[in-house]
């Protein structure tokens, strides 16, 4: 990290911000609303072919033979490819490349890709897919992670060194056993987190085109243009410089588009073979098979506290169901332990996490990658500990707040921290003190807290180059164009870039264009994941702006023959601070600068400082800044049906400085919605045949507007010393507390502890019955 990476947290021109902190409309908002926005599936090219995929009907099988002759003979079919055409393995994590675009030798889940067809239209391609004959030899299938842990033959990945174990991590900080011995209360329980998926509204789509001189262009609905370029280039043997990857407008991702996917390789290969543009659009069902959603986890937590509420130690054992491929699993396994060490101060901590392969759709990163599940378990346990020592659950959390400018037990540096204020906000807004524990039977309030990363200093593949890069073009027209590799997936990253340009250069938003996620045009950025974009792209943008600003100020100062310090360009006009009547427009200032310097431009970059603990894996989860969140959830439980009526969620989130409060609130509301809906409605699972239980948006229910609670976004701004103007992430952190706060609210409402997700009405009723039986034995009630 160099000087370019830190810019201070104040306004660039005097005391007040002009654009930062304003709820500017999203850069692509109107075009999405009017239908003008071009998504991948809107791309139609002359002569374009349509591709479809043949998928495995078996959960685990060896491919004996594939006969595509009938498919190839069908009129309108241009090409059929199989694993033999794309034999190079890939994967987003360089150490665990275990995927093929199309199966080589074996298939590992129902829905795994086997062959692909390019034809004149979708119907012909679909018909051809059914004509491909595949002979399989079925293998023993694994659907339960416990079994994958015990049994290693047959191996799902034969070359894997540890049977069916995908990754194992054990880390130990401080003397946990002594901590339990010194505690007044130690609780130990099992928790179950089911699977859930992203369900972005736009299904994955990719279009590829080749040129006569061998250049390939790939449009893909991805959130990681850069990694897609690297992997497609490697698998297809095309130099990266000749493969252009473009992300069109995206209809949501949430982590579900952060792996390279089969279709990107397939359309590129088919375009090369046929010489025609090729498109593949997945059905909703195929998106469910491609998955990469939240890992199911079985979690055992043991936590000790003193009677005055100090946490003494935490011990976690976690079994992670990875599904059939590695994806981000190495990181998931680390994150499941590494990200729990705030917002509370643990004097001691250890975790033991194991990810195993099963013959199910592969899991990966979903909003709050790897840390939502441990957070679920731990925050319920904290609630139980508070109850055990008769302390208010908010008070217990307050008491253990790790505070700012400190280090976690696993060596992560914490800079700014607004967690205490988050607790204050939800306590105030929910009227906690007068309502919690006092609402009528069936109604309740619950609290939970969390911490999350604003990007990580782990760049997926080790390198010394910037993690975020941006380039600015400015000319006499008055227009400034930013070229950023950052993927705007609807979270507003391009809008953040525009806000910063407006702030730094005194521009009207309409005089800024942002060209994003096009590898031919934009400097490298690692993509939209780990909540890194606002922090890293934001800092890179400030860096580029300040360099450009210097050029402009220098030129104007020379023209006016004054000291550069007197030139002010923060308000849309440029003036001499000593003689205010000497003023020109920003556009005129650009003219002066272009004449003075020749053609104008600048670049900016960002790299994280060296972070993390000094041990293997110590940099995974190390972030330049952490965001903090607290939720209070209010529910009504119908004790006759077991159904949960979600009434209110108060979400207080410390995002550092809110660069655009409307977008921050949108992320907070969306996160809280996504989290609480996972708990009540969703269940991403396979049935007894290993087949997805219902790969459609009818069978996989997401809350409609009538099922959604009132969401109250309470923005807390702890100004971070290294964030752009003090900003931090807001896209993933605000999801975490929703699920445990709901469980805790249900406890307040009806006196049952739900430790297993999802909270189905049948489960609620069973727990109520159990409680009634226990109460009748003891003759009392704990509610």
């Amino acid at each position, binding site marked *: 990290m160099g000087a370019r990476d830190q810019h201070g947290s104040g306004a660039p021109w005097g005391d007040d911000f002009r654009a930062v902190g304003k709820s500017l409309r999203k850069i692509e908002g109107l075009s999405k609303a009017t239908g003008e926005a071009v998504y991948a599936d809107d791309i139609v090219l002359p002569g374009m072919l349509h591709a479809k995929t043949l998928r495995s009907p078996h959960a685990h099988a060896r491919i004996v033979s594939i006969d595509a002759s009938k498919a190839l003979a069908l009129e309108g079919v241009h090409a059929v490819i199989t694993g033999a055409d794309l034999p190079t393995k890939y994967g987003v994590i360089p150490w665990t490349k275990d995927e093929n675009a199309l199966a080589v030798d074996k298939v590992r889940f129902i829905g795994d890709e086997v062959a692909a067809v390019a034809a004149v239209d979708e119907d012909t391609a679909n018909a051809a897919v059914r004509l491909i004959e595949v002979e399989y030899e079925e293998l023993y299938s694994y659907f339960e992670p416990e079994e994958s842990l015990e049994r290693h033959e047959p191996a799902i990945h034969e070359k894997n060194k540890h049977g069916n174990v995908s990754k194992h991590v054990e880390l130990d900080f401080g003397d946990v056993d002594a901590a339990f011995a010194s505690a007044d209360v130690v609780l130990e329980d099992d928790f179950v987190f089911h699977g859930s998926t992203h369900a972005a509204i736009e299904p994955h789509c990719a279009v590829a085109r080749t040129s006569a001189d061998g250049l390939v262009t790939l449009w893909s609905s991805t959130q990681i243009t850069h990694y897609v370029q690297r992997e497609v280039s490697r698998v297809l043997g095309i130099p990266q410089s000749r493969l252009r990857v473009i992300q069109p407008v995206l209809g949501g991702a949430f982590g579900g588009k952060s792996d390279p996917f089969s279709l990107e390789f397939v359309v590129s290969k088919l375009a090369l073979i046929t010489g025609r543009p090729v498109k593949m659009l997945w*059905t909703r069902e195929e998106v469910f098979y491609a998955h990469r959603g939240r890992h199911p986890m079985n979690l055992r937590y043991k936590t000790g506290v003193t009677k005055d509420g100090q946490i003494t130690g935490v011990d976690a054992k976690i079994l992670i169901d990875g599904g059939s491929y590695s994806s981000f699993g190495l990181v998931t396994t680390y994150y499941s332990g590494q990200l729990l060490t705030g917002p509370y101060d643990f004097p001691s901590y250890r975790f033991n996490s194991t990810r195993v392969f099963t013959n199910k759709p592969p899991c990966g990163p979903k909003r709050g990658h790897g840390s939502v599940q441990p957070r679920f378990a731990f925050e319920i346990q904290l609630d139980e500990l508070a109850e055990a020592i008769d302390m208010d659950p908010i008070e217990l959390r307050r008491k253990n707040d790790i505070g700012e400018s400190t280090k976690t037990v696993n060596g992560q540096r914490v800079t700014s921290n607004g967690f205490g204020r988050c607790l204050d906000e939800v306590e105030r807004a929910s009227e906690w003190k007068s309502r919690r524990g006092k609402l009528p039977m069936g109604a309740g309030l619950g609290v939970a807290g969390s911490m999350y990363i604003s990007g990580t200093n782990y760049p997926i593949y080790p390198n010394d180059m910037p993690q975020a890069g941006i380039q600015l073009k400015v000319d006499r027209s008055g227009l400034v164009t930013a070229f950023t590799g950052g993927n705007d997936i609807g979270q507003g990253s391009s809008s953040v870039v525009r806000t910063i340009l407006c702030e730094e250069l005194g521009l009207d938003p309409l005089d800024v264009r942002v060209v994003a996620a096009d590898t031919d045009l934009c400097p490298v950025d690692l993509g939209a994941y780990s909540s890194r974009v606002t922090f890293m792209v934001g800092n890179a943008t400030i860096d580029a702006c300040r360099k450009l600003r210097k050029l402009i100020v220098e030129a104007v100062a020379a023209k006016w023959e004054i000291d550069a310090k007197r030139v002010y360009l923060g308000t849309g006009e440029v003036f001499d601070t000593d003689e205010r009547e000497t003023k020109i427009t920003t556009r005129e200032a650009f003219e002066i600068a272009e004449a003075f310097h020749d053609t104008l431009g600048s670049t900016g970059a960002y790299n994280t400082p060296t972070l993390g603990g000094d041990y293997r894996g110590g940099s995974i989860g190390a972030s330049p800044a952490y965001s903090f969140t607290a939720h209070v959830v209010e529910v009504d439980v119908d004790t006759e049906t077991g159904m949960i009526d979600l009434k209110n969620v108060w979400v207080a989130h410390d995002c550092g400085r809110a660069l655009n409060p409307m977008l921050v609130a949108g992320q907070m509301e969306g996160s809280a919605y996504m989290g609480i809906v996972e708990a009540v409605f969703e269940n991403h699972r396979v049935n007894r045949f290993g087949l997805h239980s219902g790969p459609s948006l009818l069978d996989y229910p997401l809350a409609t507007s009538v099922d959604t609670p009132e969401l109250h976004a309470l923005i807390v701004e702890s100004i971070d010393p290294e964030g752009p103007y003090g900003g931090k992430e807001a896209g993933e952190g605000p999801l975490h507390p929703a699920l445990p706060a709901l469980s805790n609210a249900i406890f307040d409402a009806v006196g049952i502890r739900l430790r297993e997700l999802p909270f189905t009405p049948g489960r609620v009723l069973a727990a109520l019955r159990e409680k009634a039986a226990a109460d009748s034995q003891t003759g009392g009630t704990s509610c």
Partner: protein
Amino acid sequence: MLRLPKFNLVSPKSIDEVVQALADSKGRGRILAGGTDLLPNLKHEFIEADIVVSLGEVDELRGIEVSADGGLSIGPLTSLADIASNEHVLRIAPALAQAAGTVAGPQHRIMGTIGGNVMLDTRCQWINQSHFWRSSLGFCLKKDGTACHVVEGGSRCVAAASNDTAAALASLGASLDFQNAPTEHGDGKRTLEFEALFKADGAWNKKVTPTELLTRIHIPATPRGHRGGYVKLRLRGSIDFPLLGVASRLDLDEAGKIEHADLVVIALQARPTRVRKAAKLLIGTTPGQANYDTAVAQVMDAAYKQCTPLPNIPGDHEWRQEMVPVYVKRALAAALG
């Protein structure tokens, strides 16, 4: 997106033309009203059609009228949204208005028709899926296969009738006019009592063929003291098919005593389930009095014993059974408002 298989679309303007077009299709035709059930089923390929006969231009199939006897005559092409809000339906057949108002989501109710909901195909977690999905199981009894995945070794399809309005129409004693193309044997017209429409076979749970046109729905007049209700169990407050639906009917005399009572449960098996014997326990009791409350408890118990949901549609079937008495109670409460 799943592709819609190719078919010929015809848009006749009269009932006679419709039935002729269906007769000409030789069993390879299907009727398109709102399309909210047919189109997904065609995409999932467990229904196949060479010809799709659209009813959109057949105006004689629309409308809600009060008949001479004070009952209702309803054109099957009337939208569910119109049924739910029509003043005559709300007055004469409140359970039907309530049931129509709970079908799917608001957009579906604008497209979807009452006739379409009556003729809705049965549903099962093992059939309402894509061709690929079903193929990986070797298909099932309802289409293309020989095995049932709900009842192992079962030889009869147990897909569930999932039409909310069927429970209400059964409780109201509705009758249905159907029409086929005329032959030398007759004019092709027949009228069925509502319950006579259904049979206990999920593969096709109706005693008419899919190409027989429903032309009118008749609901007999209801007495002055008629009360009707419909409640629906579903996880979400909108969109979902019923996990259980209960229609209730209570006809009160002038003193407020129950003269006639009926309960019909939907989404259990291939046909609506009438729990009349249980409902009879209510006759002679007066809502608001202790004898009614005692009877309701007995009815709940009897309904629980009579209704045993299968794991056919999605959802926990043991919980669905637990919900039978709860929803019977709520359906009765809904009737009494």
